């Protein structure tokens, strides 16, 4: 059941990314292009996604456990920290360059062509390298 539920959530996420235009790099770069021909679509995508999820958090707060057992995620960590800012800036730069973030990069792999494949492979390489980069950032902070 857990696997079927996760499989269907992933599928719904993918179809949502596709319908909303998040798998089209022109729309994503268009949204980030505030000084050019700005495309507001992504604001509607974020709004449309945040509303049902905000309701879900409210429901979760009133329940002891998820439907299939286990525990709900811990409350959000209050500390911000340098990793959050440095990581988000690096991520945003890559997002602006190619117009892909992790969800759409995975969802579009069947039809994303060579460019999509290169993005996915290099993204995974970056993810594998990230823990050691994180460590050296922490090291730089203490010295």
């Amino acid at each position, binding site marked *: 059941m857990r696997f079927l539920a996760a*499989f269907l959530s*992933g*599928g*719904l*996420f*993918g179809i*949502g990314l*596709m319908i*909303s*235009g*998040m*798998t089209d790099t*022109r729309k994503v770069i268009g949204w*980030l292009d505030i000084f050019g021909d700005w495309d507001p*679509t992504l*604001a*509607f*995508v974020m709004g449309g*996604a*945040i*509303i049902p999820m905000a309701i*879900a958090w409210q429901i*979760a707060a009133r329940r002891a456990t998820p*439907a*299939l057992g*286990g525990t709900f995620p811990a409350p*959000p960590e209050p500390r*911000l920290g340098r*990793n*959050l*800012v440095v*990581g988000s*800036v*690096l*991520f*945003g*730069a*890559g*997002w*602006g*360059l*190619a117009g*892909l*973030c*992790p*969800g759409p*990069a995975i*969802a*579009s792999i069947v*039809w994303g062509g060579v*460019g*999509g494949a290169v993005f996915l492979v*290099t*993204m995974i*390489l*970056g*993810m*594998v390298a*990230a823990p050691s*980069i994180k460590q050296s950032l922490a090291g730089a902070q203490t010295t």
Partner: protein
Amino acid sequence: MPQDWLLGLLGGALIGLAAAAYLLINGRVMGASGIIGSLVDRTARENARERIAFLAGLVLFPGVAALVTGTANTHVTGNLALVAVAGLLVGVGTRVANGCTSGHGVCGISRLSLRGIVATVFYIGAGGLTVVLFRHLLGWI
């Protein structure tokens, strides 16, 4: 197209419903970078199969939809060196920041997490500056 905002809202609602289901049924935060990242760097092994099932759905459903409609196009730039740099930045950045558009953006902002809001401000800001630099000043994208 004039109906783009409507498709955005509809697709966004499906993304939100997927995140809601993953939370209320499986008890997990639906963050794409965490789901794939913790598989490839082999952290958090205990739920690996659940994450693989999520990723299988994420690849299969839109993949089949793309084959059926035949119109899906990501319009990724042909400049593969640029794509590779972008991929590395996204991979490193999302794992160092511990989240991306789905985790910090959708799941974080919806519970008013300060980390989610701050991350979103910085990645949208950095993305906007990158587009200004590489599209309008350098003309590379």
